[in-house]
């Protein structure tokens, strides 16, 4: 067996790191790539199936209603402000500010879930009416699944912030959660344009 000759000591290295220095940040990026691909595939399918129709939406189908969806899109963009504050508070290890910010963001996520349920109504078409309805539902459902999971995760994480078992490295988790939130809310903007706005122009 090979022996070892000690040339350095790593005792002084930190145990909590943020951003690209942390393995969890890279893991989050990996899952963003996977989930981003899934949403991209739904969007591609939307345009692929569009070619099979003369009119979009097809005749006899109303265009989607815009009010709820537009409020939702605006809320998603604006929610990045409190989440960015959570991110920065976590990086300076400010537990109080992280707690407050996460409570706010979790409430926002719950509101988004309610709005999402109304957005399905606003599509004005069923998933089994025709391929237009199918693929519009697909885009909305794919994103809704991620939104629901993120909401559940935020709930658990916020509860954890008040747990006596909390450790310093969990604050890095707040920062990674923020990264995922930026992705989830901002990726919705092009998808919103595709599902709700494009039937008015295509």
């Amino acid at each position, binding site marked *: *067996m*090979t*022996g*070892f*000759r*000690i*040339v*350095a*000591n*790593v*005792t*002084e*290295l*930190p*145990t*909590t*790191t*943020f951003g*690209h*220095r*942390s*393995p969890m940040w*890279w*893991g989050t990026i*990996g*899952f963003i*790539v*996977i989930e981003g*691909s*899934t949403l991209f*595939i739904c969007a591609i*399918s939307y345009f692929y*199936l569009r070619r*099979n*129709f003369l009119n979009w939406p*097809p005749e006899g189908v109303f265009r989607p209603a815009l009010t709820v969806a537009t409020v939702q899109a605006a809320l998603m963009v604006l929610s990045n402000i409190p989440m960015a504050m959570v991110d920065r508070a976590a990086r300076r*290890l*400010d*537990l109080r500010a992280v707690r407050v910010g996460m409570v706010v963001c979790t409430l926002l996520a719950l509101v988004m879930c309610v709005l999402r349920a109304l957005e399905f109504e606003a599509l004005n078409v069923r*998933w*089994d*009416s*025709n*391929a237009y309805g*199918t*693929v519009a539902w*697909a885009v909305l459902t794919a994103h809704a699944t991620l939104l*629901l999971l993120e909401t*559940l*995760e935020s709930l*658990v994480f916020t509860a*954890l912030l008040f*747990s*006596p*078992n*909390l*450790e*310093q*490295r*969990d604050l890095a988790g707040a920062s990674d959660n923020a990264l995922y939130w930026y992705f989830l809310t901002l990726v919705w903007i092009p998808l919103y344009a595709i599902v709700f706005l494009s039937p008015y122009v295509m």
Partner: protein
Amino acid sequence: MSLTVPAVPHEPGRAPESAAEVVGRLEDTWRARPGLRGWLSSVDHKSIGKRYIITAFVFFLLGGIEAAVMRAQLARPENGLIGPDAYNQIFTMHGTTMMFLFAVPVMDAVGLYLVPLMIGGRNVAFPRLNAYGYWVYLFGGAFLYVMFFLNTGPDTGWFSYVPLAGPEFSPGKRVDVWAQTVTFTEISALVASVELIVTIFKTRAPGMTLNRMPLYVWSMLVQSFMVLFAMPWVASASMFLAMDRLVGTHFFNPAEGGDALLWQHLFWFFGHPEVYIIFVPALGFVSSIVATFTRRPVFGYPAMVLSMVATGFLAFGLWVHHMFVTGIPQLGASFFTAASMMIAIPSGVQIFCWIATIWSGRPRFAVPFLFVLGFVALFLIGGFTGVMIASVPFDTQVHDTFFIVAHFHYVLIGGAVFPLFGAFYYWFPKVTGRMLDERLGRWNFWLFFIGMNVTFFPMHELGLLGMPRRVYTYLPETGWGGLNLLASIGAVTIAVSVVVFLVNVARSLRVGEAAGANPWGADTLEWAATSPPRPYNFAFTPVVESREPMWQHPAELPAVEGLRTDVREVLVTTLLDAEPDSRHRHPEPTIWPLIAAIATAVLFITLIFTPWGAVIGTVLLFLAFVGWAWPRGKDHQEQLMIEAES
């Protein structure tokens, strides 16, 4: 709090004072838990890697048995061994098993076992996720076979084309079983790819810059990125198919504006890279084996790395060559012909680099090296026929004939299974502490090599004679009987060779020659660990100063100390230069990944029967992940830190 603390240089050259003490504490901290519960809770990449490899090999045997049944049926014209319905299920099971349950998982499995050892780490980056990925894979594979034995095995081919696989032409649950099995295996492959990418990016031994990474680790990095970008396509496609069948969506239903060709695009955008996802890790095996058995670093390291990366990119530009007969525009077809021929270039570069290495070295013709030579020969034949069918007129002629069957078996068996068997012989001593027998190994190799050619070479001719694939029988007047019989004799030979391998493994586990840490005199870090390695892999994290650390320092590796030994802790390094950057807490063994995998299985399996499966499964999965994520709060040192800060 300062976040950038460099490693403190220690008195250079000092031997670790209390190495024995450190080892003693590591043994305590990293010890596997006892009993069944301990076994089910393991998060050690080596235990999980071994289970993964053995499970994948069991599926290889099952897929092989299915192949043997097909060859028995086709051995003579108008044979009555099995009927068309059973034949349809069996060829679908064979393809699905070999692609989704054997080839990709086994490549990931070997990677999950070897990569942390090769980069001087203690485990993969997310050990619980790793365990979860394995269980999901196991449940998916078991589910497929249970349904097969209940006569509900899928029967529409491994690529399950619509409209055949749609609700109109395939009522019942067979295709749903296929679609959900695919979803299971995609999840485990995606999990493994994130796992491997982060492990390779962030936990390499200090000094192992990207430029010093072993070629095998490069191959797993490229493969993992390919999985990351390819698998979501088939996962989405199979979900679309399941929804068409379950809740009446119209993705693939032309009557309501859906599109059958959308399925082919989505499937092959995954399906073509899939071939390279299987093949690229095999390139890594070949490079490791060539270096060790010629005792030379592989010639042209930058060219090798760039070729693998190029293969990874080009693999995504070929998918339409599976669709040449679907009536796509001619310009499109020409583009994909060009791309399909272009991918031969990086493969050629690598073959020439290996030849140059062998040429300038003094090769030892041990069994792993024989399998590499077999790979070169067989893969060349598969590559040549690949360039042939990249041409549209030729492909139109042989599409869906046995010529295609011959081509892809040369590519897949020659390009991936031969290097994999080489890898088994090469790393078996590391995993088990014992050598496999050389004499039986030679029998294994030659029977496999001869059997492979006797089975598949005649299929080229059968295809040119017009024999379509996926027919359960044929008439005597076709004149295909002789060549089919020959192919079936070849299949028997392959079966015998696999039996020889199994005998060799069983025998060597009991009475094989003891291996020692580095029996082949190899160059990479896994050979610095004991055989089999301890749960913590290395007592001290090695420091790397060249591409061949074990040849540079065969007796004594430079290393760092200072990681905690009272809790599980690993060293995190920077992405490009692998400088020590932080210490990272590592999870304890836990049962939650298994529970989460059971919840996942409930979700997917109930979803076949009712949309409410989504609700039930999500609730269970949520509970499982709460259990998984909730901190146990064992480490008071960390808790004190946060109290002080807040």
